[in-house]
């Protein structure tokens, strides 16, 4: 690009810097939210991934708690984690505890088939932000992503 001397080119550079030029406003700050779906049930993974795919988010999956933790350890970042409770190798409770211990501050939402209040409460103790029955509905997914938007 050749910058010619003159007021107009200076104006346009300034405009880009202040972010006032249409279309460049969010270039520097816009990135897709990244969501991790953790569940050993292929049906749930498929449904939740599909629900999420209706929104502009990046989706990753893990089939158990250990895979989720390993992903995070290897440098992956998630804005939102949908964490199933009962999984082999490492369950949702342990995985949530581990992720929090490793410094993940993002939203972790428990998703469980065990929906009694006491069971939900016990799961929350691991460090969840919230806990819902599975499968999630599209309204629930929408509201979770809206919450992400607010926090960011």
């Amino acid at each position, binding site marked *: 690009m050749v910058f010619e001397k003159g007021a107009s080119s200076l104006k346009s550079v300034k405009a880009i810097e202040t972010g006032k030029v249409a279309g460049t406003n969010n270039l520097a700050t816009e990135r897709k939210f990244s969501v991790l779906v953790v569940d050993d*049930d*292929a*049906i*749930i993974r*498929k*449904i939740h991934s*599909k*629900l999420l*795919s*209706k929104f502009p988010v990046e989706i990753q999956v893990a089939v158990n708690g250990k895979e989720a933790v390993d992903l995070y350890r290897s440098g992956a970042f998630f804005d939102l984690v949908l964490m199933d409770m009962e999984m082999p190798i490492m369950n949702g409770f342990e995985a949530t505890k581990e992720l929090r211990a490793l410094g993940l501050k993002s939203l972790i939402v428990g998703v469980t*088939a065990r929906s009694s209040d006491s069971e939900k409460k016990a799961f929350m103790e691991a460090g969840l932000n919230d806990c819902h029955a*599975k*499968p999630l*509905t*599209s309204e629930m997914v929408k509201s979770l992503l809206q919450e992400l938007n607010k926090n960011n």
Partner: protein
Amino acid sequence: MDVMSQLRRQLLEHTAFLRKEGFLDDQFEQLQKLQDENSPDFVVEVVSIFFEDSEKLLNNMAKALEQKIVDFKQVDAHVHQFKGSSASIGAMRVKNVCIEFRNYCEAQNVEECFRCMQKLQYEYVLLKNQLEYLFRVEQQIRAAGG
């Protein structure tokens, strides 16, 4: 009425029948809503996973109940999983039998558990046939250009 309209009516009527008889609940409708141009076979794919999983679980339940000393925790774990997957696709009648089954696992009642398992197998086969019919009609609609 042309073939396409007839097929569409068949599909609607059969889906309504399945809802009315309690085979399927709202969750199945949620799955249908998720289907789109990006995944035109979404419902069939999800239900196929359900069929695969169900058959494994029913097998595992049968094996566990046939043991000399029944491990009710193990049976319950299989039923719990089946309850979860049936709820995920909206298979209401199957899910309800699972709920009943779990009560008998907790009570450690072998006879009742056996009875529930047979009921579960029955409901599952019934549902499978119904859904396969539904999918066949959908396929015919697609083949006819719908």
